[in-house]
């Protein structure tokens, strides 16, 4: 028997529903490859990369970008955001490779290769972090809907229904295409940014000089650096993309298309993130204080004088989309991660009966987050920024496992990390850990001085 599982020559295999549906997807990919239709092949294979990147442009992330634009205008953060998405590509390409090489989810690999303690930690870290993040996704949905006068309860209920219905497809491919269609609305931030009449020269200067940084590099600057990293590289993305790659049935032969999928996703997400900064840059120019803003509706309302009603509406619609798509992908990553460690069925191709635990985890997290968000008077902007900070601090151990797994030659064979991949991943881990450590020291110092 090989390291990767059962002896393929064994004759006692009874194909399951998941096998049959996954094989049907693979047969389509094989036909596209045999017929030399590269674009069709790419369209069939694309999905996990685009979804994970656009999914990460979620409610709190878009709020972080909006806060960034309103606090610092067009300057340092424009090229910095591009850098963070380059980091995201490097990390996500690693999990794509691990997924196609092993056909196992991220949580499952951690539990089986490093022991149940680390598997349990990964599972709990993922579930709790995701639950908090899901709360903020519903905050975004509620805030975006509030701009159009939709009551909070109705907005959260409708959002919950959309997410739950998407889970009922019982078919990975259908679920993926439906969520991708919805994720396309993330691009609404781009036309919204055009309503701000951005200064192309200022954007070009920012790209060339990594400046200006109005107000210098104080505590608030560090907080936004951390929040913007947390808005781009987070633990759930690792678990989601690897499990989605496995659920979709991608193999080593699909690696090239998988990389293109991930790169396209990162590029689209970076453009949208920068568009959000550009959208709110007029608030910086007009010295609007956003410290008391509690969500997307406040930003959309404040932007109305500068973007007009249409631009502000696009911004609010974008916030709704950001929350909804992230709620779908993040709850699914929880379901994958927990089910993999518990060693129960984990596929969107399962029926509701077969995948009771899998779908149940997703539904419970969605329902709990929706209920929590309806509790009044929470300091919403503080919570959303804190969620990104949590993601950043817990990212270092998550990245460490990616590095260990990607270097596991027993598992990865010729797809194991080379020197360049190790240098890039190592630099990202060190960078994120250092920024996390600086933030930690800042927090502790503030605490000692009663800040």
């Amino acid at each position, binding site marked *: *028997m*090989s*390291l*990767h*599982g*059962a002896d*393929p020559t*064994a004759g*006692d*295999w009874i*194909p*399951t529903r*998941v*096998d*049959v549906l*996954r*094989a*049907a997807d*693979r*047969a389509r*990919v*094989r036909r596209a490859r045999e017929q030399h239709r590269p674009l069709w092949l790419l369209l069939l294979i694309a999905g996990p990369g685009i979804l994970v990147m656009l999914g990460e442009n979620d409610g709190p992330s878009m709020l972080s970008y909006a806060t960034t634009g309103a606090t610092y205008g067009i300057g340092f953060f424009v090229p910095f955001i591009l850098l963070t998405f380059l980091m995201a590509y490097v990390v996500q390409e690693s999990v794509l490779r691990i997924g196609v090489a*092993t*056909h*196992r989810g991220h949580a499952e*690999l951690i539990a*089986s*290769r*490093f*022991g149940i303690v*680390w598997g349990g*930690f990964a599972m709990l870290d993922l579930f709790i972090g995701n639950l908090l993040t899901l709360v903020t996704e519903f905050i975004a949905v509620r805030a975006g809907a509030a701009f159009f006068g939709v009551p909070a309860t109705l907005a959260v209920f409708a959002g919950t229904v959309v997410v739950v219905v998407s889970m009922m497809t019982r078919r990975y491919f259908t679920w993926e295409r439906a969520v991708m269609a919805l994720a396309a609305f993330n691009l609404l931030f781009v036309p919204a940014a055009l309503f701000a009449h951005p200064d192309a020269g200022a954007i070009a200067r920012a790209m060339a000089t990594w400046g200006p940084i109005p107000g210098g590099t104080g505590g608030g600057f560090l907080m936004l650096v951390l929040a913007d990293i947390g808005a781009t590289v987070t633990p759930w993305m690792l678990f989601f993309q690897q499990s989605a790659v496995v659920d979709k*049935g991608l*193999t080593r032969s699909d690696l090239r298309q998988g990389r293109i999928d991930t790169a396209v996703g990162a590029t689209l997400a970076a453009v949208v993130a920068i568009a959000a900064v550009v959208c709110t840059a007029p608030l910086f120019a007009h010295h609007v204080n956003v410290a008391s803003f509690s969500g997307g509706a406040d930003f959309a309302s404040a932007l109305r004088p500068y973007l007009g009603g249409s631009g502000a509406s696009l911004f609010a619609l974008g916030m709704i989309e950001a929350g909804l798509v992230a709620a779908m992908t993040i709850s699914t990553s929880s379901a994958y991660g927990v089910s993999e460690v518990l*060693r129960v069925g984990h596929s969107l191709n399962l029926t509701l009966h077969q995948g009771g635990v899998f779908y149940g985890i997703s539904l419970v997290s969605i329902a709990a987050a929706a209920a929590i968000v309806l509790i009044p008077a*929470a*300091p919403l902007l*503080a*919570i959303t*920024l*804190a969620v990104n*900070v*949590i993601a950043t*601090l*817990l990212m*270092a*151990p998550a990245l*460490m496992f990616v590095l*260990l797994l990607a270097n*596991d030659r*027993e*598992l990865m064979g010729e797809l194991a990390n080379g020197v360049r991949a190790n240098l890039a991943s190592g630099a990202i881990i060190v960078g994120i*850990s250092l920024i*996390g450590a600086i933030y*930690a020291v800042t*927090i502790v110092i*503030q*605490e000692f001085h009663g800040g």
Partner: protein
Amino acid sequence: MKQPAPDLSALEPAQRSDALATPLPRKHLSGWSLLLLAFLRVYVAFSVGLVILAFIRALR
């Protein structure tokens, strides 16, 4: 109407349900890996405390 038989040959052996049901063996960890994991335990303990502190501060 009769459904066409699924083309299961499109699946790689390691993708089949029977293969996936078999857990992978525990990795033999080198000294460096063990040291790294020990460091990670300390980091996790520290950062969990910090996360709680940051969250309480954010809630204030």
